[in-house]
């Protein structure tokens, strides 16, 4: 649904109203920062990416197509800014050995996972997330954490819906494989 109040705020920004800028920043800073954080993986870079994203958005506000949702447009800028930031840094591949091994049944690792303390669960989820590439991390964060529909994720990332589906499927399998591996072999390191 089109947000008419937001449209008015955007018009005010175009009329050089600083208070309107503040309203938009306060409304979206949390999501923009979170998305950036999940991709770049540290607070300092995430803050820089989030700030740059807002600045780019304000600078190019005239080119914003009012038919689309402002939030989707802003998240797309954030996604592109964060991904290009990670590309500038050296990518450290952290793959586990591709030795085929039997994956734990879902019910079994679910039970093992629930036995862990909250802090350990956080560590495990963070560890398996860190095994994904920057854009895969962004995709699963939007899909699982923010519960965004595939269509919106496709708009934000600039991928087709079927491509998003395939990438999420691959990421899901990777997460499953890493979690299974972790719960089978490396729990003593975490515990």
């Amino acid at each position, binding site marked *: 649904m089109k947000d008419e109040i937001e449209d008015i705020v955007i018009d005010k*920004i*175009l*009329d*050089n109203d*600083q208070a309107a*800028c*503040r309203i938009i*920043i*306060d409304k979206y*800073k*949390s999501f923009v*920062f*979170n998305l950036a*954080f999940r991709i770049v993986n540290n*607070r300092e870079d*995430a*803050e820089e990416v*989030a*700030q*740059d*994203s*807002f*600045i*780019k958005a*304000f*600078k*190019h*506000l005239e080119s914003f197509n009012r038919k689309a949702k402002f939030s989707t447009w802003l998240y797309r*800028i954030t996604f*592109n*800014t964060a991904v*290009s930031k990670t590309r500038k840094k050296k990518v450290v591949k952290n793959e586990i050995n591709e030795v085929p091994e039997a994956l734990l049944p*879902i*019910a079994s690792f*679910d039970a093992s*996972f629930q036995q862990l303390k*909250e802090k350990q*669960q*956080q560590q495990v*989820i*963070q560890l398996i*997330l860190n095994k994904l590439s920057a854009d895969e991390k962004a995709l*699963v*964060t939007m899909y*699982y*954490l923010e*519960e965004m529909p595939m269509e919106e994720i496709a708009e934000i990332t600039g991928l087709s819906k079927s491509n998003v589906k395939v990438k999420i*499927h691959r990421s*899901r399998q990777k*997460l*499953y494989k890493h979690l299974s591996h972790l719960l089978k072999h490396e729990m003593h390191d975490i515990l």
Partner: protein
Amino acid sequence: MKTMERDNQQKLDAFFRVNFQKTLKKELPSDEFTDKVLHKLNKTQLSPYKKNQVVFGRKIKWAFFSFIGVLMVFSVYFSLAVPGDNTYQLPPSIVNLLDHYAGLFSSTNNWLMFVSAVALGFWSLMLLDKVLQRISFG
């Protein structure tokens, strides 16, 4: 087989959804985040306030471009025509007028050339700024 696979996918989706939401806390930006963005906006040329300021009105822009256009036509004409010559079959009144303005381009009266050079230089800078703005968009 397909049903089993879909069933597994759904279970995995449910597992990851629940546990991501349970364990991944929402990260919040610093308290000064908004002020920092506004400060950056005001400090840099990226400020929407600066961007949206009308430097030249549309009418002035048209007058400016017309002026440059006329100058270019005059320059081409005077580089080819010989004063007083009616090779170009123009009405005498226009030839007289052009002859009059030809004086502006003489070596002792080159202020018009100077103004047009400055204007063209300024216009090139504006164009360069537009190009840079497009390139810098992520």
